[in-house]
């Protein structure tokens, strides 16, 4: 046994990402020097990824509770009550770095990891979403990354038989060296069949199930570990390969075991594998755990204790069973042809003890890994938000700009992406990709879950606080637009280097802004994840605090969609259009400027407008709704027309000075709705009564002399929908295929 006797040098400590003060603290906590296995364990448990040392302090500012929240952050996933004994379990996680190095496998294992987080709580995954950011299309790596990431997400989700129903894809040069892959999974469980990770009690068997352990993804200490293992590089892949087939078996086996009452606690092995799962389970259970590595199913020969504790092999779980139930559990896992092994037991020592080949190779207090982990209130600077109202050329023809916008990388149709995902499997996808939120029917009921992932990074760059508020507000709007009540959020906070005060300022302001919006909208955060250090050669990504929202649709028969339904419907805009062009897509794509203040978010109005629109949908008075976001009013109208094949004529008051801002400004809090003209008056009256700004923008059903559906208006020469459609649909496939 060589590993535990490797001398701990200052270099080794550094290579494990620990600074001097942190190392001194480890020595103090242990009352001695750690051995190499213990150093490895501290290194991963105290990493930013596991300990949230830069963000923990600020994350406390997020609201995490509501009467319908059953489990907030701190477990594998958040849980909300959706009524009738059903709960919804969901979380989002990043797999940014692996997806940059190996796009297919990195993205695939990202999906696999987040699914385990959800089914470990007893839920069957029912939907997947994702939020993707890539570098500029012209960057030589971008196409390859898009292709691999999308294929990876599809291959894993499709094989699992979980529909991938929504997401977003954007491009920006700051992601050239740091693409973002945020994957969200939503599952359903019964309220009386939820499983947690607290390993309570002493003397209970700890079992390992799933795939065997190999040398996958042992991070950080490549050079250091080379010192105690000759065949270093080739044996030490930093990226894991996903095995969705095994995961599907693991899902079914876990759900089968969960139907019994044999489980005390269960947790997936994610980042830092065996180490974090055992330490966290003991910590939450206020117990200790002793494990014997000789009992761990191994894929390779001569795995060291260090390697086994740090391996990130996929498709594995750790569970604590009630004593005497091992055989029953083993039968289930054998049926599904999975590994099963009792590798240890819980103790009352509050220590994590690891044995290997008859020796104790690690022995430390559990709290040293959790509560005692470093916590930093890093210095930060709040940059003055970008301000001002940018200049623009008021003479540009609006329809030409619309055509151009619809064919830009950010606004074009993402059909090429979602058609690679099986979004119809499981037979409950009642609203498929292409709308404001995806809706999945709660199996066997008339209720639906509405889901959406959102953030507008350019706003967050201009003003981290307002931008983060906007992300939450847009999520609220997307969920509302289908008729659902927004219930809770998961998040994925992608930022750059927290050790730089400016970047830390983006983090702090982002979290605070997000918290403010969540509070105002009764839309708490129940789970999430932080991904920091997203920078290359000193340049950070745009701050990208992605949120994944879930809402409840009481009656799927009264769901709204973005497609126009009939000719001669009145098109109304709820919410005032002031013409805010700062940080708009129009400004960037047409004027070539990324400047000005981002649109302010009025949370009171968001809530008021949302309630108004939702009320109309729920009352069966409205079936056609689209929120107004990127690209502004005219882009939103075009999207509604394209989704239906029905044209529109707009009653535009053509005043050159504010025509462009009116058509393309990105003022917040707005919805476009369409309904039969004779019902429109009542809505206008009701809005006026509620003090809500509403404007009658036009009518559906315009056709050219040839009978082709068109979009037109005063100052808007008629353009055929097919012309708009080809601009909208062609960019992505032609980019990817050339």
């Amino acid at each position, binding site marked *: 046994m060589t590993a535990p006797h490797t001398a701990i040098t200052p270099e080794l400590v550094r290579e494990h990402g620990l600074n001097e003060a942190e190392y001194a603290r480890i020595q103090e906590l242990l009352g001695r020097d750690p051995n190499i296995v213990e150093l490895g364990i501290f290194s991963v448990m105290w990493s930013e990824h596991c300990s949230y040392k830069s963000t923990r302090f600020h994350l406390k500012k997020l609201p995490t509770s509501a009467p319908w929240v059953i489990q907030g952050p701190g477990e594998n996933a958040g849980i909300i009550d959706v009524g009738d004994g059903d709960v919804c379990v969901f979380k989002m996680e990043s797999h940014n770095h692996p997806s940059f190095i190996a796009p297919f*496998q990195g993205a695939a294992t990202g999906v696999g990891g987040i699914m385990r987080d959800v089914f470990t709580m007893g839920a069957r995954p029912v939907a997947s979403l994702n939020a993707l950011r890539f570098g500029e299309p012209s960057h030589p790596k971008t196409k390859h990354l898009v292709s691999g990431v999308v294929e990876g997400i599809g291959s894993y989700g499709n094989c699992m038989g979980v529909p991938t129903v929504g997401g977003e894809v954007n491009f920006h040069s700051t992601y050239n060296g740091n693409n973002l892959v945020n994957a969200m999974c939503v599952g359903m469980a019964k309220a009386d069949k939820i499983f947690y990770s607290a390993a309570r009690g002493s003397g209970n068997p700890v079992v390992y199930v799933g*795939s065997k352990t190999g040398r996958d993804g042992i991070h950080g200490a490549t050079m250091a570990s080379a010192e105690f293992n000759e*065949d270093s590089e080739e044996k030490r892949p930093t990226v894991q*390969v996903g095995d969705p087939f095994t995961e599907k078996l693991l899902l079914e086996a876990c759900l089968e075991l969960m139907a019994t009452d044999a489980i005390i606690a269960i947790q997936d092995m994610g980042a830092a594998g065996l180490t974090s799962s055992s330490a966290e389970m003991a910590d939450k259970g206020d117990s200790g755990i002793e494990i014997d590595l000789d009992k761990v199913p191994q*894929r390779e020969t001569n795995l060291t204790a260090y390697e086994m504790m740090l391996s990130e092999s*996929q498709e594995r779980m750790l569970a604590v069973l009630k004593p005497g139930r091992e055989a029953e559990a083993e039968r289930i896992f054998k049926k599904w042809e999975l590994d099963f092994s009792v590798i240890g037991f819980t103790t009352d020592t509050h220590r994590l003890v690891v044995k290997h080949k008859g020796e104790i190779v690690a022995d430390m207090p559990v709290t040293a890994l959790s509560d005692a982990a470093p916590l930093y209130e890093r210095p930060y600077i709040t940059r003055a938000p970008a301000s001002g109202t940018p200049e623009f050329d008021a003479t540009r023809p609006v329809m030409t700009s619309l055509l151009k916008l619809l064919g830009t990388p950010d606004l074009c149709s993402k059909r090429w992406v979602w058609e690679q995902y099986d979004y119809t499997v499981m037979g409950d996808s009642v609203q498929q990709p292409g709308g404001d939120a995806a809706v999945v029917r709660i199996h066997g009921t008339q209720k639906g879950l509405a889901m959406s992932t959102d953030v507008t990074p350019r706003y967050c760059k201009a003003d981290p606080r307002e931008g983060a508020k906007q992300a939450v507000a847009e999520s609220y709007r997307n969920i509302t637009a289908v008729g659902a009540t927004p219930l809770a959020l998961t998040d994925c906070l992608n930022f750059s280097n927290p050790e730089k005060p400016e970047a830390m300022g983006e983090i702090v302001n982002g979290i605070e802004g997000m918290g403010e919006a969540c509070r105002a909208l009764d839309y708490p955060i129940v789970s999430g994840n932080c991904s920091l250090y997203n920078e290359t050669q000193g340049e950070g990504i745009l701050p990208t605090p992605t949120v994944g929202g879930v809402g409840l649709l009481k009656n799927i028969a009264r769901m709204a969609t973005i497609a126009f339904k009939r000719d001669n419907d009145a098109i109304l805009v709820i919410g005032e259009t002031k013409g805010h062009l700062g940080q708009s897509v129009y400004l960037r794509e047409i004027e070539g400027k990324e400047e000005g203040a981002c649109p302010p978010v009025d949370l009171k109005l968001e809530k008021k407008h949302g309630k108004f629109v939702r009320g109309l949908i729920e009352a069966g008075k409205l079936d056609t709704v689209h929120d107004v976001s990127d690209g502004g009013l005219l882009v939103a109208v075009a999207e509604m027309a394209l989704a239906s094949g029905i044209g529109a004529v707009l009653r535009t008051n053509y005043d050159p000075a504010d025509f462009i801002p009116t058509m393309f400004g990105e003022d917040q809090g707005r919805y476009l709705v369409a309904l039969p003209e004779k019902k429109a008056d009542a809505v206008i009256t009701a809005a006026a009564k509620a003090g809500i700004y509403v404007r009658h923008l036009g009518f559906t059903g315009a056709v050219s002399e040839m009978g082709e559906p068109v979009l037109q208006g005063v100052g808007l020469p008629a353009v055929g929908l097919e012309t708009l459609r080809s601009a909208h649909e062609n960019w992505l496939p032609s980019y990817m295929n050339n």
Partner: protein
Amino acid sequence: MKARVFVTLKNGVLDPQGKAIGHALNNLGFGSVGEVRQGKLIELALTGSDEAKARADLKEMCEKLLANTVIEKYEIEITA
């Protein structure tokens, strides 16, 4: 000239396909089968007759496109 390129997963990298194939062969009664690994075989026709140049080119093709060297290794064979 004709060349064959073999792209396989590095040792230690999980090979789910190979694992499943091995399992299936055992189930079919081929008890002698131990570990199975699956890789790619790429056959290329090349113009030119300079073998050294072809090898250098193929190496570059592997590094750039045919293999993801984070998890895969490759082998080049000139066959004719």
